[in-house]
Structures are given as structure tokens and as C-alpha cells.
């Protein structure tokens, strides 16, 4: 019986460190900048939200 080689996983620590730094930068934005950011995100997410709602209503009608 042959021994399988241990799986080699890539080192993602730099990715995680960048994500952490990015989160820290986002936290440092001013209150007004954060509100603007969230308002922009809400606009971008609106079509997804509408689609989700339409799906939910269609499912309710089906049931």
C-alpha cells in the first residue's frame, strides 16, 4: 500500500493580512464616508434584493 503524499496547500497568510489591513482602513474612514459607502453598496445590491424578493413572492404563490 503506497503512502499518499501530504497535501500541499498554498500559503494564504499574505492574503489574510491584506484583508485585515483593508478592514482596518475601512474602519478608519469618517462616519460620512462610511455612510456614502453603504449607500453606494445598497444601490449596487438593490437589483439582487429585488430578484430575491420576486423569487420569494413567486414561491409563495406556488405554495
Amino acid at each position, binding site marked *: 500500500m503506497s503512502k499518499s503524499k501530504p497535501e500541499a496547500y498554498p500559503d494564504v497568510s499574505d492574503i489574510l493580512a491584506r484583508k485585515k489591513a483593508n478592514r482596518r482602513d475601512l474602519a478608519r474612514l469618517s462616519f460620512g464616508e462610511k455612510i456614502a*459607502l453603504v449607500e453606494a453598496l445598497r444601490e449596487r445590491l438593490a437589483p439582487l434584493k429585488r430578484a430575491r424578493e420576486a423569487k420569494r413572492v413567486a414561491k409563495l404563490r406556488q405554495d
Partner: protein
Amino acid sequence: MGMKQTLEVISAMEAAGVIGRYAISGAVAAFNYVEAAVTQDLDILISFNEALTQGSSGLLSLSPIYSYLKSKGYEEHRKEGIVIGGWPVQFLPVADALDTEALFQAQEIEVKFGVVEGTVKTRVLRPEHLVAIALKVGRPKDLIRVTQFVEEGVVDMAVLCDVLDRHNLSTTWRQYCARVGIEDPCS
């Protein structure tokens, strides 16, 4: 249309005596201290005033708020809020001693919306009160917020421990610490 308009309308309501003192609570208040997360509504903590207490029963009614907003053209309701400046706003009257303390100790801030839009003065709850309220409410998303505040080091632990102690939340806090695996800084 946007949060600037929302806050201007709410400040005008306070000035007109439609609501008593107010402060931003919930997820939007958290923006003042930690990384912003998408939220659908704006929670506004309000104090009782005579306008909101109707009849001899002393029961609280939010209808004066809705009547005022209707007279200003704000009639759309979305989720549990009334839409002002594109944001569904939930007016939450203080419900206990913790809310009352949080509202009266809320800090005044000036929000800069940009060169064109200018600034708006408003109030937001302090981080220690936001953590205590989130802990009291205790939904998974509230506990995530508590973790964010703790991890980002934006709460004064001595102040938080005092708030938790005075509002009988120490046990809930200890349970939270055990659940997330952090040493209780209040013990």
C-alpha cells in the same frame, strides 16, 4: 436624497418638539466606531415627550410622528420603518434604564457628507452603550457587532464593565466571553 436629508428631517422633528431627544442607534451608529456593514434601516432612539404620550392611560403612541412625516410628504413604509431620504427609519422609544442612559450620554458629532452636501450635526450612542444594547438584544448579528467592537479596541473596558454591571448584563457578558473564547476583562 440620502442620509443627510434623513438626519436633517429628524433634527427638524426634534427642534419642532415632535420627538424628544434623539440619537442614532444600531448598525448605523456602529459605523462611527467600526468597519461599516450593509444595513437596510436606520434606528433612531428617542425619549418620551408629551407629544408621544396620549390620553389619561399614558400609553405611548408614535402616531404624532407619522402624522408629522405624512404632512411633510413621507408616507412610504418599508420593513418596519418609514422612508426618509431613502432610508427606512425606525423610531424606537427608550424601553429601559439602559436605553435612557445611552440616549442621554450620546455624543454630538458633525457628519461631513462632502464638499457639496456639507455637514449635519447629530448624535450617536457611545460604543459602550452600543455593546451593552447589542448584548441585551442578543441576536447572532448583535453578537457579531459586539465582537467587532471588542476586536477593534474601540470600547473603554472599564466603562463597559460598569455599564454592564449597573444594567444587570454581567452574566450575559460572561456567557458571551466564554462562548467566543476571550478572557473576561470585567472579572
